[in-house]
Protein backbone atom coordinates (compact mmCIF):
# COMPACT_ATOMS: atom_id res chain seq x y z
CA UNK A 1 0.00 0.00 0.00
CA UNK A 2 2.69 2.46 1.04
CA UNK A 3 4.93 1.56 -1.82
CA UNK A 4 2.15 1.88 -4.38
CA UNK A 5 1.28 5.31 -3.00
CA UNK A 6 4.85 6.41 -3.37
CA UNK A 7 5.14 4.99 -6.87
CA UNK A 8 2.01 6.76 -7.94
CA UNK A 9 2.85 10.12 -6.63
CA UNK A 10 6.56 10.61 -6.87
CA UNK A 11 6.84 11.16 -10.63
CA UNK A 12 3.71 13.27 -10.69
CA UNK A 13 5.13 15.47 -7.96
CA UNK A 14 8.36 16.07 -9.81
CA UNK A 15 6.55 17.11 -12.95
CA UNK A 16 4.00 19.36 -11.24
CA UNK A 17 5.99 21.47 -8.86
CA UNK A 18 3.08 23.89 -8.78
CA UNK A 19 1.15 22.11 -6.01
CA UNK A 20 3.50 22.02 -3.03
CA UNK A 21 3.12 22.46 0.69
CA UNK A 22 4.05 26.12 0.10
CA UNK A 23 1.47 26.87 -2.61
CA UNK A 24 -1.31 24.58 -1.37
CA UNK A 25 -2.82 27.01 1.19
CA UNK A 26 -3.12 29.71 -1.49
CA UNK A 27 -4.72 27.25 -3.90
CA UNK A 28 -7.17 26.24 -1.17
CA UNK A 29 -8.03 29.83 -0.34
CA UNK A 30 -8.09 31.27 -3.86
CA UNK A 31 -11.76 30.47 -4.64
CA UNK A 32 -13.25 31.84 -1.43
CA UNK A 33 -11.01 34.93 -1.44
CA UNK A 34 -11.96 35.68 -5.05
CA UNK A 35 -15.66 35.43 -4.22
CA UNK A 36 -15.09 37.43 -1.05
CA UNK A 37 -13.44 40.26 -2.99
CA UNK A 38 -16.03 40.31 -5.78
CA UNK A 39 -19.19 39.88 -3.75
CA UNK A 40 -18.26 41.43 -0.42
CA UNK A 41 -15.31 43.82 -0.39
CA UNK A 42 -16.19 45.49 -3.69
CA UNK A 43 -19.92 46.03 -2.89
CA UNK A 44 -19.11 47.36 0.58
CA UNK A 45 -16.85 50.05 -0.85
CA UNK A 46 -19.14 50.72 -3.77
CA UNK A 47 -22.18 51.31 -1.55
CA UNK A 48 -20.05 53.68 0.52
CA UNK A 49 -19.42 55.70 -2.66
CA UNK A 50 -23.11 55.45 -3.57
CA UNK A 51 -24.07 57.00 -0.26
CA UNK A 52 -22.48 60.25 -1.50
CA UNK A 53 -24.42 60.20 -4.76
CA UNK A 54 -27.89 61.13 -5.82
CA UNK A 55 -29.85 60.33 -8.96
CA UNK A 56 -30.54 63.16 -11.38
CA UNK A 57 -32.47 62.15 -14.52
CA UNK A 58 -31.50 58.49 -14.20
CA UNK A 59 -27.79 59.18 -13.68
CA UNK A 60 -25.96 59.11 -10.35
CA UNK A 61 -23.97 62.21 -9.51
CA UNK A 62 -21.74 63.15 -6.60
CA UNK A 63 -23.84 65.02 -4.08
CA UNK A 64 -21.59 65.41 -1.08
CA UNK A 65 -23.18 64.72 2.27
CA UNK A 66 -26.72 65.48 1.10
CA UNK A 67 -27.99 61.93 1.76
CA UNK A 68 -26.60 62.03 5.28
CA UNK A 69 -28.02 65.51 5.85
CA UNK A 70 -31.41 64.24 4.72
CA UNK A 71 -31.12 61.27 7.08
CA UNK A 72 -30.43 63.48 10.09
CA UNK A 73 -33.65 65.37 9.44
CA UNK A 74 -35.74 62.32 8.56
CA UNK A 75 -38.30 61.54 11.34
CA UNK A 76 -38.95 58.08 9.85
CA UNK A 77 -35.25 57.26 10.20
CA UNK A 78 -35.40 58.06 13.92
CA UNK A 79 -38.58 56.02 14.27
CA UNK A 80 -36.86 53.00 12.69
CA UNK A 81 -33.72 53.58 14.75
CA UNK A 82 -35.81 53.72 17.94
CA UNK A 83 -37.61 50.49 17.06
CA UNK A 84 -34.33 48.68 16.41
CA UNK A 85 -32.94 49.88 19.74
CA UNK A 86 -36.10 48.87 21.63
CA UNK A 87 -35.81 45.38 20.17
CA UNK A 88 -32.11 45.27 21.05
CA UNK A 89 -32.69 46.35 24.64
CA UNK A 90 -35.70 44.09 25.33
CA UNK A 91 -35.49 41.10 23.02
CA UNK A 92 -31.77 40.29 23.12
CA UNK A 93 -31.41 40.11 26.95
CA UNK A 94 -34.69 38.17 27.23
CA UNK A 95 -33.64 35.64 24.61
CA UNK A 96 -30.07 35.22 25.85
CA UNK A 97 -31.20 34.75 29.47
CA UNK A 98 -33.57 32.01 28.34
CA UNK A 99 -30.86 30.48 26.17
CA UNK A 100 -28.28 30.44 29.00
CA UNK A 101 -30.75 28.88 31.45
CA UNK A 102 -31.79 26.24 28.91
CA UNK A 103 -28.19 25.47 27.99
CA UNK A 104 -27.12 25.12 31.63
CA UNK A 105 -30.08 22.90 32.52
CA UNK A 106 -29.72 20.75 29.41
CA UNK A 107 -26.00 20.35 30.10
CA UNK A 108 -26.42 19.20 33.67
CA UNK A 109 -25.36 15.59 34.18
CA UNK A 110 -28.51 14.73 36.14
CA UNK A 111 -30.92 15.62 33.34
CA UNK A 112 -32.84 12.90 31.61
CA UNK A 113 -34.16 13.14 28.01
CA UNK A 114 -31.53 15.79 27.28
CA UNK A 115 -31.39 14.93 23.59
CA UNK A 116 -35.14 15.18 23.21
CA UNK A 117 -35.30 18.60 24.87
CA UNK A 118 -32.33 19.89 22.87
CA UNK A 119 -33.86 18.87 19.56
CA UNK A 120 -37.28 20.16 20.59
CA UNK A 121 -36.01 23.58 21.56
CA UNK A 122 -33.87 23.74 18.42
CA UNK A 123 -36.65 22.99 15.87
CA UNK A 124 -37.86 26.62 15.43
CA UNK A 125 -34.40 27.42 14.04
CA UNK A 126 -35.23 25.13 11.11
CA UNK A 127 -38.17 27.23 9.97
CA UNK A 128 -37.52 30.16 7.69
CA UNK A 129 -38.29 33.52 9.27
CA UNK A 130 -41.02 34.03 6.69
CA UNK A 131 -42.62 30.67 7.51
CA UNK A 132 -42.43 31.44 11.24
CA UNK A 133 -44.07 34.82 10.63
CA UNK A 134 -46.89 33.27 8.58
CA UNK A 135 -47.62 30.74 11.35
CA UNK A 136 -47.78 33.53 13.92
CA UNK A 137 -50.07 35.57 11.66
CA UNK A 138 -52.60 32.78 12.19
CA UNK A 139 -51.99 32.32 15.91
CA UNK A 140 -52.05 36.07 16.63
CA UNK A 141 -55.09 36.99 14.54
CA UNK A 142 -57.07 39.43 16.66
CA UNK A 143 -60.58 38.02 16.18
CA UNK A 144 -59.95 34.34 15.55
CA UNK A 145 -56.37 33.62 16.64
CA UNK A 146 -55.48 30.78 18.99
CA UNK A 147 -53.70 33.03 21.48
CA UNK A 148 -56.60 35.44 21.95
CA UNK A 149 -58.95 32.44 22.23
CA UNK A 150 -56.83 30.99 25.03
CA UNK A 151 -56.50 34.41 26.71
CA UNK A 152 -60.28 34.82 26.59
CA UNK A 153 -60.53 31.58 28.60
CA UNK A 154 -58.78 33.33 31.48
CA UNK A 155 -60.81 36.50 31.02
CA UNK A 156 -58.41 38.66 29.01
CA UNK A 157 -59.89 40.89 26.30
CA UNK A 158 -58.70 40.26 22.72
CA UNK A 159 -55.39 41.94 21.98
CA UNK A 160 -54.65 43.46 18.57
CA UNK A 161 -51.27 41.77 18.29
CA UNK A 162 -50.68 43.13 14.80
CA UNK A 163 -52.61 46.39 14.94
CA UNK A 164 -52.99 48.08 18.33
CA UNK A 165 -50.56 50.43 20.04
CA UNK A 166 -47.21 48.87 20.85
CA UNK A 167 -48.45 45.28 20.58
CA UNK A 168 -46.99 44.80 17.06
CA UNK A 169 -43.53 45.42 18.52
CA UNK A 170 -44.31 42.89 21.27
CA UNK A 171 -45.35 40.47 18.53
CA UNK A 172 -42.00 40.92 16.78
CA UNK A 173 -40.21 40.23 20.05
CA UNK A 174 -42.28 37.07 20.64
CA UNK A 175 -41.66 35.71 17.14
CA UNK A 176 -37.93 36.49 17.27
CA UNK A 177 -37.54 34.90 20.70
CA UNK A 178 -39.40 31.78 19.56
CA UNK A 179 -37.26 31.51 16.46
CA UNK A 180 -33.77 32.26 17.85
CA UNK A 181 -33.57 31.01 21.47
CA UNK A 182 -32.73 27.46 20.42
CA UNK A 183 -30.01 28.69 18.09
CA UNK A 184 -28.23 30.54 20.88
CA UNK A 185 -28.83 27.62 23.24
CA UNK A 186 -26.84 25.30 20.95
CA UNK A 187 -23.92 27.72 20.69
CA UNK A 188 -23.90 28.19 24.48
CA UNK A 189 -24.11 24.42 24.99
CA UNK A 190 -20.95 24.12 22.93
CA UNK A 191 -19.33 26.70 25.19
CA UNK A 192 -20.40 24.84 28.33
CA UNK A 193 -18.72 21.64 27.12
CA UNK A 194 -15.37 23.38 27.41
CA UNK A 195 -15.69 24.29 31.07
CA UNK A 196 -13.57 21.89 33.07
CA UNK A 197 -15.45 19.59 35.46
CA UNK A 198 -12.63 20.10 37.99
CA UNK A 199 -13.77 23.67 38.62
CA UNK A 200 -17.19 22.47 39.71
CA UNK A 201 -15.76 19.66 41.80
CA UNK A 202 -13.44 22.04 43.62
CA UNK A 203 -16.34 24.42 44.23
CA UNK A 204 -18.51 21.59 45.57
CA UNK A 205 -15.80 20.53 47.97
CA UNK A 206 -15.63 24.13 49.18
CA UNK A 207 -19.38 23.93 49.75
CA UNK A 208 -20.46 26.41 47.07
CA UNK A 209 -24.15 26.14 46.24
CA UNK A 210 -25.36 25.43 42.73
CA UNK A 211 -26.49 29.06 42.34
CA UNK A 212 -23.08 30.32 43.44
CA UNK A 213 -21.39 27.92 41.04
CA UNK A 214 -23.52 29.33 38.24
CA UNK A 215 -22.53 32.92 38.98
CA UNK A 216 -18.88 32.35 39.89
CA UNK A 217 -17.89 29.56 37.51
CA UNK A 218 -20.37 29.06 34.68
CA UNK A 219 -21.01 32.68 33.71
CA UNK A 220 -17.38 33.90 33.80
CA UNK A 221 -16.20 30.80 31.92
CA UNK A 222 -18.97 31.23 29.37
CA UNK A 223 -18.16 34.89 28.80
CA UNK A 224 -16.32 34.57 25.46
CA UNK A 225 -19.12 32.49 23.91
CA UNK A 226 -21.77 34.71 25.48
CA UNK A 227 -20.04 37.70 23.94
CA UNK A 228 -20.20 36.07 20.51
CA UNK A 229 -23.94 35.38 20.84
CA UNK A 230 -24.50 38.91 22.15
CA UNK A 231 -22.72 40.52 19.22
CA UNK A 232 -24.45 38.25 16.69
CA UNK A 233 -27.85 39.08 18.23
CA UNK A 234 -27.06 42.80 18.22
CA UNK A 235 -26.22 42.64 14.54
CA UNK A 236 -29.36 40.57 14.03
CA UNK A 237 -31.63 43.14 15.64
CA UNK A 238 -30.33 45.83 13.29
CA UNK A 239 -30.67 43.50 10.31
CA UNK A 240 -34.23 42.61 11.22
CA UNK A 241 -36.21 42.45 7.98
CA UNK A 242 -38.06 39.19 7.20
CA UNK A 243 -40.38 39.27 10.23
CA UNK A 244 -41.61 42.89 10.02
CA UNK A 245 -41.87 42.60 6.22
CA UNK A 246 -44.12 39.54 6.52
CA UNK A 247 -46.02 40.32 9.73
CA UNK A 248 -46.78 44.04 9.52
CA UNK A 249 -44.91 45.56 6.54
CA UNK A 250 -43.49 47.95 9.13
CA UNK A 251 -46.91 49.24 10.18
CA UNK A 252 -49.08 50.41 11.72
CA UNK A 253 -47.73 53.96 11.57
CA UNK A 254 -44.15 52.68 11.17
CA UNK A 255 -44.33 51.18 14.67
CA UNK A 256 -42.52 48.05 13.49
CA UNK A 257 -40.40 49.72 10.83
CA UNK A 258 -36.79 48.62 11.23
CA UNK A 259 -33.72 50.23 9.72
CA UNK A 260 -33.24 47.40 7.25
CA UNK A 261 -36.89 47.45 6.18
CA UNK A 262 -36.62 51.22 5.67
CA UNK A 263 -33.48 50.91 3.58
CA UNK A 264 -35.14 48.16 1.54
CA UNK A 265 -38.15 50.42 0.88
CA UNK A 266 -35.88 53.26 -0.20
CA UNK A 267 -33.73 51.02 -2.37
CA UNK A 268 -36.24 48.72 -3.99
CA UNK A 269 -39.60 50.51 -3.76
CA UNK A 270 -38.38 54.06 -4.53
CA UNK A 271 -35.11 53.02 -6.21
CA UNK A 272 -33.25 55.73 -4.33
CA UNK A 273 -29.96 53.84 -4.07
CA UNK A 274 -28.07 56.85 -2.77
CA UNK A 275 -30.26 57.39 0.26
CA UNK A 276 -30.61 53.64 0.84
CA UNK A 277 -26.79 53.36 0.89
CA UNK A 278 -26.55 56.18 3.43
CA UNK A 279 -29.03 54.27 5.62
CA UNK A 280 -26.91 51.15 5.12
CA UNK A 281 -23.88 52.94 6.45
CA UNK A 282 -25.86 54.17 9.43
CA UNK A 283 -26.50 50.48 10.21
CA UNK A 284 -22.83 49.61 9.64
CA UNK A 285 -21.67 52.42 11.94
CA UNK A 286 -24.14 51.54 14.71
CA UNK A 287 -23.26 47.85 14.60
CA UNK A 288 -19.53 48.62 14.62
CA UNK A 289 -19.84 50.96 17.61
CA UNK A 290 -22.07 48.55 19.56
CA UNK A 291 -19.74 45.61 18.89
CA UNK A 292 -16.77 47.66 20.10
CA UNK A 293 -18.65 48.74 23.22
CA UNK A 294 -19.58 45.14 23.97
CA UNK A 295 -15.95 44.05 23.54
CA UNK A 296 -14.81 46.82 25.91
CA UNK A 297 -17.51 46.07 28.49
CA UNK A 298 -16.64 42.40 28.39
CA UNK A 299 -13.06 43.46 29.12
CA UNK A 300 -11.48 41.05 26.68
CA UNK A 301 -7.74 41.09 27.22
CA UNK A 302 -6.84 39.54 23.87
Amino acid sequence: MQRSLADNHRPERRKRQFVTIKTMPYILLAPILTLFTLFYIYPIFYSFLLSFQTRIRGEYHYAGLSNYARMIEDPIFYKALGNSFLILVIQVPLMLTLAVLLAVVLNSPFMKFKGLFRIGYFTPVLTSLVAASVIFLLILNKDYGLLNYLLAKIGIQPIGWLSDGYWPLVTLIIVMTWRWTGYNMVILLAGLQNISEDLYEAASIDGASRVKQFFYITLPQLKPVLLVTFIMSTIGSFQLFDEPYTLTSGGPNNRTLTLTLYLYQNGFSYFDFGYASALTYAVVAIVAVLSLVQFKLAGDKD
Partner: protein
Amino acid sequence: MKRKSTIVEQILLYLVLIIGLVITILPFYWMIIGATNRTGDVFRIPPTFVPGSYLLENLKHLNESILIWRSLFNSLFIAITYTLIGLLLCSAAGYAFAKFQFKGKNIFFTVLILSMMIPYQATIIPLFQMFAKLDLMNTYLAVILPQLVYVFPIFLMTQNMKAVPASLLEAARIDSAGEFYIFFRIVLPAMRPALAAVAIFLFNHQWNNFMWPLVIMNTKEMYTLPVALSTLAGQNSIDYGQAMLGTSISVLPVIVIFLFMQKHFVSGILGGAVKG
Protein backbone atom coordinates in the same frame (compact mmCIF):
# COMPACT_ATOMS: atom_id res chain seq x y z
CA MET B 1 -19.88 15.20 45.27
CA LYS B 2 -22.52 17.62 44.16
CA ARG B 3 -25.59 18.07 46.28
CA LYS B 4 -28.45 15.97 44.92
CA SER B 5 -31.49 18.09 44.19
CA THR B 6 -34.70 17.30 45.98
CA ILE B 7 -37.53 15.49 44.23
CA VAL B 8 -39.69 18.63 44.32
CA GLU B 9 -37.01 20.70 42.61
CA GLN B 10 -36.62 18.02 39.96
CA ILE B 11 -40.34 17.86 39.24
CA LEU B 12 -40.61 21.65 39.02
CA LEU B 13 -37.65 21.79 36.66
CA TYR B 14 -39.12 19.16 34.33
CA LEU B 15 -42.50 20.88 34.49
CA VAL B 16 -41.01 24.21 33.38
CA LEU B 17 -39.01 22.47 30.65
CA ILE B 18 -42.07 20.65 29.37
CA ILE B 19 -44.20 23.80 29.33
CA GLY B 20 -41.44 25.57 27.42
CA LEU B 21 -41.24 22.67 25.00
CA VAL B 22 -45.00 22.72 24.44
CA ILE B 23 -44.88 26.47 23.70
CA THR B 24 -42.01 25.81 21.29
CA ILE B 25 -43.74 22.97 19.44
CA LEU B 26 -47.33 24.25 19.53
CA PRO B 27 -46.93 26.62 16.54
CA PHE B 28 -45.89 23.62 14.41
CA TYR B 29 -48.95 21.69 15.56
CA TRP B 30 -51.15 24.68 14.81
CA MET B 31 -49.57 24.91 11.36
CA ILE B 32 -50.65 21.32 10.67
CA ILE B 33 -54.14 22.01 12.03
CA GLY B 34 -54.32 25.00 9.70
CA ALA B 35 -53.03 23.05 6.70
CA THR B 36 -55.61 20.29 7.03
CA ASN B 37 -58.70 22.36 7.84
CA ARG B 38 -60.69 25.11 6.18
CA THR B 39 -59.92 28.61 7.45
CA GLY B 40 -63.49 28.69 8.77
CA ASP B 41 -62.91 25.66 11.01
CA VAL B 42 -59.74 27.11 12.50
CA PHE B 43 -61.51 30.45 13.03
CA ARG B 44 -64.53 28.89 14.74
CA ILE B 45 -65.05 29.46 18.45
CA PRO B 46 -64.02 27.11 19.87
CA PRO B 47 -61.56 26.24 17.08
CA THR B 48 -60.93 22.68 15.99
CA PHE B 49 -57.92 21.13 17.68
CA VAL B 50 -57.57 18.06 15.47
CA PRO B 51 -56.24 17.67 11.93
CA GLY B 52 -59.03 17.80 9.36
CA SER B 53 -59.52 16.36 5.89
CA TYR B 54 -59.15 19.46 3.71
CA LEU B 55 -55.49 18.96 2.85
CA LEU B 56 -56.12 18.27 -0.84
CA GLU B 57 -58.61 21.11 -1.21
CA ASN B 58 -56.10 23.50 0.38
CA LEU B 59 -53.45 22.18 -1.97
CA LYS B 60 -55.68 22.93 -4.95
CA HIS B 61 -56.19 26.52 -3.80
CA LEU B 62 -52.50 26.86 -2.97
CA ASN B 63 -51.58 25.79 -6.49
CA GLU B 64 -53.88 28.44 -7.89
CA SER B 65 -52.23 31.20 -5.82
CA ILE B 66 -48.56 30.29 -6.07
CA LEU B 67 -46.53 27.70 -7.99
CA ILE B 68 -45.82 25.72 -4.83
CA TRP B 69 -44.07 22.70 -6.42
CA ARG B 70 -42.01 24.90 -8.67
CA SER B 71 -41.02 27.05 -5.69
CA LEU B 72 -40.17 23.92 -3.70
CA PHE B 73 -37.95 22.77 -6.57
CA ASN B 74 -36.31 26.21 -6.82
CA SER B 75 -35.59 26.28 -3.10
CA LEU B 76 -34.27 22.70 -3.04
CA PHE B 77 -32.12 23.12 -6.15
CA ILE B 78 -30.61 26.39 -4.93
CA ALA B 79 -30.05 25.16 -1.37
CA ILE B 80 -28.50 21.82 -2.38
CA THR B 81 -26.19 23.30 -5.04
CA TYR B 82 -25.19 26.02 -2.62
CA THR B 83 -24.50 23.52 0.17
CA LEU B 84 -22.29 21.31 -2.02
CA ILE B 85 -20.19 24.19 -3.37
CA GLY B 86 -20.12 25.84 0.07
CA LEU B 87 -18.88 22.63 1.74
CA LEU B 88 -15.94 22.47 -0.65
CA LEU B 89 -15.08 26.16 -0.22
CA CYS B 90 -15.42 26.15 3.58
CA SER B 91 -13.47 22.97 4.15
CA ALA B 92 -10.69 24.09 1.77
CA ALA B 93 -10.44 27.42 3.59
CA GLY B 94 -10.69 25.80 7.04
CA TYR B 95 -7.97 23.27 6.14
CA ALA B 96 -5.67 26.04 4.90
CA PHE B 97 -6.15 28.14 8.03
CA ALA B 98 -5.86 25.24 10.47
CA LYS B 99 -3.05 23.15 8.99
CA PHE B 100 -0.71 25.42 7.01
CA GLN B 101 1.72 28.18 7.84
CA PHE B 102 1.86 30.82 5.13
CA LYS B 103 2.32 34.51 4.53
CA GLY B 104 -0.86 36.53 4.97
CA LYS B 105 -2.61 33.83 7.00
CA ASN B 106 -3.42 36.05 9.95
CA ILE B 107 -4.48 38.97 7.78
CA PHE B 108 -6.82 36.83 5.66
CA PHE B 109 -8.36 35.22 8.72
CA THR B 110 -8.80 38.49 10.62
CA VAL B 111 -10.39 40.23 7.63
CA LEU B 112 -12.82 37.33 7.17
CA ILE B 113 -13.80 37.31 10.84
CA LEU B 114 -14.14 41.10 11.00
CA SER B 115 -16.35 41.04 7.91
CA MET B 116 -18.92 39.11 9.97
CA MET B 117 -19.55 42.37 11.80
CA ILE B 118 -20.55 44.24 8.67
CA PRO B 119 -24.26 43.71 7.98
CA TYR B 120 -24.83 42.08 4.60
CA GLN B 121 -27.22 44.89 3.67
CA ALA B 122 -24.12 46.92 2.91
CA THR B 123 -23.63 44.72 -0.15
CA ILE B 124 -27.15 44.33 -1.44
CA ILE B 125 -27.56 47.44 -3.62
CA PRO B 126 -24.22 47.17 -5.46
CA LEU B 127 -24.83 43.44 -5.93
CA PHE B 128 -28.27 44.19 -7.36
CA GLN B 129 -26.71 46.64 -9.83
CA MET B 130 -23.93 44.18 -10.65
CA PHE B 131 -26.31 41.32 -11.48
CA ALA B 132 -28.61 43.64 -13.41
CA LYS B 133 -25.64 44.76 -15.51
CA LEU B 134 -24.50 41.16 -16.06
CA ASP B 135 -28.04 40.33 -17.18
CA LEU B 136 -28.25 37.64 -14.49
CA MET B 137 -31.42 38.87 -12.79
CA ASN B 138 -33.98 36.17 -12.08
CA THR B 139 -31.41 33.32 -12.26
CA TYR B 140 -30.31 30.62 -9.81
CA LEU B 141 -26.71 31.75 -10.24
CA ALA B 142 -27.52 35.23 -8.94
CA VAL B 143 -29.06 33.80 -5.79
CA ILE B 144 -26.24 31.31 -5.14
CA LEU B 145 -23.03 33.19 -5.98
CA PRO B 146 -22.94 36.10 -3.48
CA GLN B 147 -24.24 33.93 -0.64
CA LEU B 148 -21.21 31.64 -0.95
CA VAL B 149 -19.33 34.24 1.06
CA TYR B 150 -20.54 33.05 4.46
CA VAL B 151 -17.86 33.28 7.10
CA PHE B 152 -19.32 31.49 10.10
CA PRO B 153 -19.01 27.97 8.59
CA ILE B 154 -15.42 28.76 7.52
CA PHE B 155 -14.68 29.59 11.14
CA LEU B 156 -16.45 26.41 12.28
CA MET B 157 -14.49 24.31 9.77
CA THR B 158 -11.18 25.91 10.85
CA GLN B 159 -11.87 24.99 14.47
CA ASN B 160 -12.72 21.42 13.51
CA MET B 161 -9.73 21.02 11.17
CA LYS B 162 -7.38 21.76 14.08
CA ALA B 163 -8.25 18.31 15.38
CA VAL B 164 -6.63 16.58 12.38
CA PRO B 165 -3.35 15.21 13.76
CA ALA B 166 -0.27 16.75 12.14
CA SER B 167 1.40 13.33 12.24
CA LEU B 168 -1.24 11.98 9.86
CA LEU B 169 -0.42 14.66 7.29
CA GLU B 170 3.33 14.22 7.79
CA ALA B 171 3.08 10.49 7.27
CA ALA B 172 1.17 11.03 4.04
CA ARG B 173 3.74 13.54 2.81
CA ILE B 174 6.61 11.18 3.63
CA ASP B 175 4.77 8.65 1.47
CA SER B 176 4.84 11.33 -1.25
CA ALA B 177 1.09 11.66 -1.40
CA GLY B 178 0.06 14.74 -3.37
CA GLU B 179 -1.48 17.67 -1.52
CA PHE B 180 -4.83 17.25 -3.25
CA TYR B 181 -4.80 13.54 -2.49
CA ILE B 182 -4.22 14.35 1.19
CA PHE B 183 -7.06 16.88 1.23
CA PHE B 184 -9.68 14.80 -0.57
CA ARG B 185 -8.75 11.30 0.55
CA ILE B 186 -7.36 11.75 4.04
CA VAL B 187 -8.58 15.03 5.55
CA LEU B 188 -12.13 15.26 4.24
CA PRO B 189 -13.16 11.69 5.18
CA ALA B 190 -11.89 12.33 8.72
CA MET B 191 -14.06 15.46 8.89
CA ARG B 192 -17.41 13.80 8.28
CA PRO B 193 -19.20 14.94 11.46
CA ALA B 194 -18.00 18.52 11.01
CA LEU B 195 -19.02 18.46 7.35
CA ALA B 196 -22.50 17.32 8.35
CA ALA B 197 -22.82 20.19 10.83
CA VAL B 198 -21.58 22.74 8.32
CA ALA B 199 -23.89 21.27 5.67
CA ILE B 200 -26.87 21.89 7.95
CA PHE B 201 -25.73 25.48 8.53
CA LEU B 202 -25.26 26.14 4.82
CA PHE B 203 -28.51 24.49 3.77
CA ASN B 204 -30.48 26.30 6.44
CA HIS B 205 -28.85 29.63 5.56
CA GLN B 206 -29.85 29.37 1.91
CA TRP B 207 -33.22 27.72 2.55
CA ASN B 208 -34.20 30.67 4.79
CA ASN B 209 -32.66 33.31 2.59
CA PHE B 210 -35.34 35.90 1.89
CA MET B 211 -34.23 39.46 1.18
CA TRP B 212 -31.78 38.62 -1.60
CA PRO B 213 -34.09 36.32 -3.63
CA LEU B 214 -36.90 38.83 -3.03
CA VAL B 215 -34.73 41.42 -4.76
CA ILE B 216 -33.33 39.17 -7.50
CA MET B 217 -36.24 36.89 -8.46
CA ASN B 218 -39.08 38.69 -10.19
CA THR B 219 -41.30 36.01 -11.73
CA LYS B 220 -43.53 33.44 -10.02
CA GLU B 221 -41.63 30.63 -11.77
CA MET B 222 -38.38 31.65 -10.08
CA TYR B 223 -39.68 32.46 -6.59
CA THR B 224 -38.12 30.49 -3.76
CA LEU B 225 -40.42 29.24 -0.99
CA PRO B 226 -39.97 32.19 1.41
CA VAL B 227 -40.66 34.68 -1.40
CA ALA B 228 -43.71 32.73 -2.57
CA LEU B 229 -45.00 32.43 1.02
CA SER B 230 -44.58 36.15 1.61
CA THR B 231 -46.87 36.86 -1.36
CA LEU B 232 -49.54 34.73 0.36
CA ALA B 233 -49.18 36.69 3.59
CA GLY B 234 -49.31 39.97 1.71
CA GLN B 235 -52.86 39.44 0.46
CA ASN B 236 -55.67 41.43 2.03
CA SER B 237 -57.63 38.48 3.34
CA ILE B 238 -55.28 35.60 3.88
CA ASP B 239 -56.55 32.09 3.12
CA TYR B 240 -54.92 30.39 6.10
CA GLY B 241 -55.61 26.89 4.79
CA GLN B 242 -53.29 27.40 1.84
CA ALA B 243 -50.85 29.60 3.76
CA MET B 244 -50.37 26.92 6.44
CA LEU B 245 -50.03 24.18 3.83
CA GLY B 246 -47.41 26.23 2.00
CA THR B 247 -45.62 26.79 5.29
CA SER B 248 -45.73 23.06 6.10
CA ILE B 249 -44.21 22.24 2.72
CA SER B 250 -41.38 24.66 3.43
CA VAL B 251 -40.80 23.57 7.04
CA LEU B 252 -41.17 19.79 7.08
CA PRO B 253 -38.33 18.78 4.67
CA VAL B 254 -35.77 20.66 6.76
CA ILE B 255 -36.99 19.09 9.97
CA VAL B 256 -36.74 15.62 8.40
CA ILE B 257 -33.20 16.28 7.12
CA PHE B 258 -32.21 17.63 10.51
CA LEU B 259 -33.59 14.64 12.40
CA PHE B 260 -31.48 12.37 10.19
CA MET B 261 -28.32 14.39 10.70
CA GLN B 262 -28.76 15.76 14.21
CA LYS B 263 -26.20 13.42 15.82
CA HIS B 264 -23.50 14.75 13.51
CA PHE B 265 -24.77 18.26 13.97
CA VAL B 266 -24.29 18.31 17.72
CA SER B 267 -20.84 16.72 17.63
CA GLY B 268 -19.77 18.97 14.74
CA ILE B 269 -20.78 22.08 16.62
CA LEU B 270 -19.19 20.84 19.84
CA GLY B 271 -15.99 19.92 18.01
CA GLY B 272 -15.91 23.44 16.66
CA ALA B 273 -16.40 25.00 20.04
CA VAL B 274 -14.08 27.85 20.86
CA LYS B 275 -11.28 26.28 22.85
CA GLY B 276 -9.85 28.51 25.58
